[in-house]
């Protein structure tokens, strides 16, 4: 039986190729009844003589495209899914008699499985070259997807970090550095827009009360006489004077911040 060559090309133009051992294994395994393949594929111990490399299983999974009517795809998918999970760093570790789960690692592992699962399904609809690498170096490809997800989660977490040092109360050095980077160079219109949005977000957690007022300002009047129409005083649970003071402080802070940037951008 013919084995379809992979299609993805390296940036050098060279086509991705399966390792010779894998190609040999695929040829051999194509002679087995499917039940035998499944039985061997369920072996998880790599030291076992009958262990089937994951690259071989990916090839078999893709070949089920030609026969959609049985459960072969699902059987192979379930095994591969377990193997993707196994190739990711373990999120569970035993502590005494209980199992502790590292939520961050579990989140990254799930995102990695999600990514490969999506590739598997898009490949069924129309050949997806991104899946080719999993027939060449399965575990390394999973690790590569894993590190990409990890970096995304890290970026997200860093973005959610407090702007101030929780101990000293000073603005964190990394925030200062980021601001400095912007100040040193002129901003394009796009960067300026991005910066203003980020500035709003940055101010928000530190001045939640004043920003609440600013957010509400766009939509609601401080006081309203119309029945059923909420006012800022009702929404914030404050008297009119407090609302006005908060609003004025919020506007002043934003004005100062933006003025400062305009000045530095000159």
């Amino acid at each position, binding site marked *: 039986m013919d084995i379809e060559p992979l299609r*993805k090309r390296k*940036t050098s133009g060279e086509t991705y190729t399966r390792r010779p051992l894998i190609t040999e294994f695929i040829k051999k395994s194509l002679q087995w009844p499917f039940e035998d393949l499944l039985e061997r594929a369920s072996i998880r111990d790599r*030291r076992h003589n009958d262990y089937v490399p994951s690259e071989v299983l990916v090839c078999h999974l893709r070949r089920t495209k030609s026969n959609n009517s049985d459960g072969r795809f*699902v059987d192979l998918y379930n095994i591969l899914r377990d193997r993707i999970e196994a*190739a990711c760093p373990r999120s569970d570790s035993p502590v005494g008699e209980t199992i502790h789960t590292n939520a961050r690692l579990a989140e990254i592992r*799930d995102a990695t499985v999600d990514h490969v699962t999506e590739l598997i399904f898009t490949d069924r609809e129309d050949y997806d070259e991104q899946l080719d690498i999993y027939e060449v170096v399965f575990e390394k490809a999973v*690790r590569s997807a*894993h*590190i990409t997800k990890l*970096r995304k989660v890290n970026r997200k977490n860093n973005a959610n970090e407090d702007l101030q040092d929780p101990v000293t109360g000073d603005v964190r050095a990394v925030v200062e550095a980021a601001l400095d980077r912007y100040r040193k160079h002129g901003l394009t219109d796009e960067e300026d827009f991005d910066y203003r949005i980020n500035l709003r977000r940055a101010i928000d957690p530190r001045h939640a009360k004043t920003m609440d007022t600013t957010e509400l300002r766009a939509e609601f009047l401080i006081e309203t006489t119309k029945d059923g129409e909420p006012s800022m005083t009702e929404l914030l649970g404050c008297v009119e004077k407090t609302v006005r003071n908060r609003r004025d402080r919020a506007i002043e802070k934003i004005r100062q911040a933006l003025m400062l940037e305009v000045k530095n951008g000159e």
Partner: protein
Amino acid sequence: MANRDDVLSDFTVEEELSPSVLKAYLQRYPEYAQDLLALFNELSMTDLEATEASLPLETKAMNAETLRVQHVRQSLFGSGVKEFARELGLPRAFFTGLNAGVVHLASMPTGLLKTLARKLDVHIQDVISGMQQGDGQPVSMKSDVKPGGEAPIEFADYVAQANLSEEEQRALQALLAGDGSD
């Protein structure tokens, strides 16, 4: 400029991941230096952990994934299906039939899997697991179809047999296109 994902893929399939190979990539693609360094570190660890990873896996415990799959099953086949179906503008029976025993899982459009995962705030693999587990009972999408004992059908055939109204078909097309009107 070379695509980041392509460069990282090329690096991953290199026969030998030595510092000299890393150096060559860093010189060729300085714009991806951080990604390459992180990947090199990760792939170096893969080799070190190979022995450990060869050990049999532990049995899965009750974890977040189990809960997410339960949520999928409850939303598609259980008490949550009424509200979920109303929210997405499709008949309840359409979702209760989205069971691996009725619809061939491999024929499920990626767009629909992604949309369902997003709507339910879970991963694609959780939707697939939920569909495989179903509600534990043989499920029929229509009262005139015999439940169980029959080979699953293609998703396209399932839709054709579902007798969806025009409005429901539009709702389905929006889901297939990944149009999340959250």
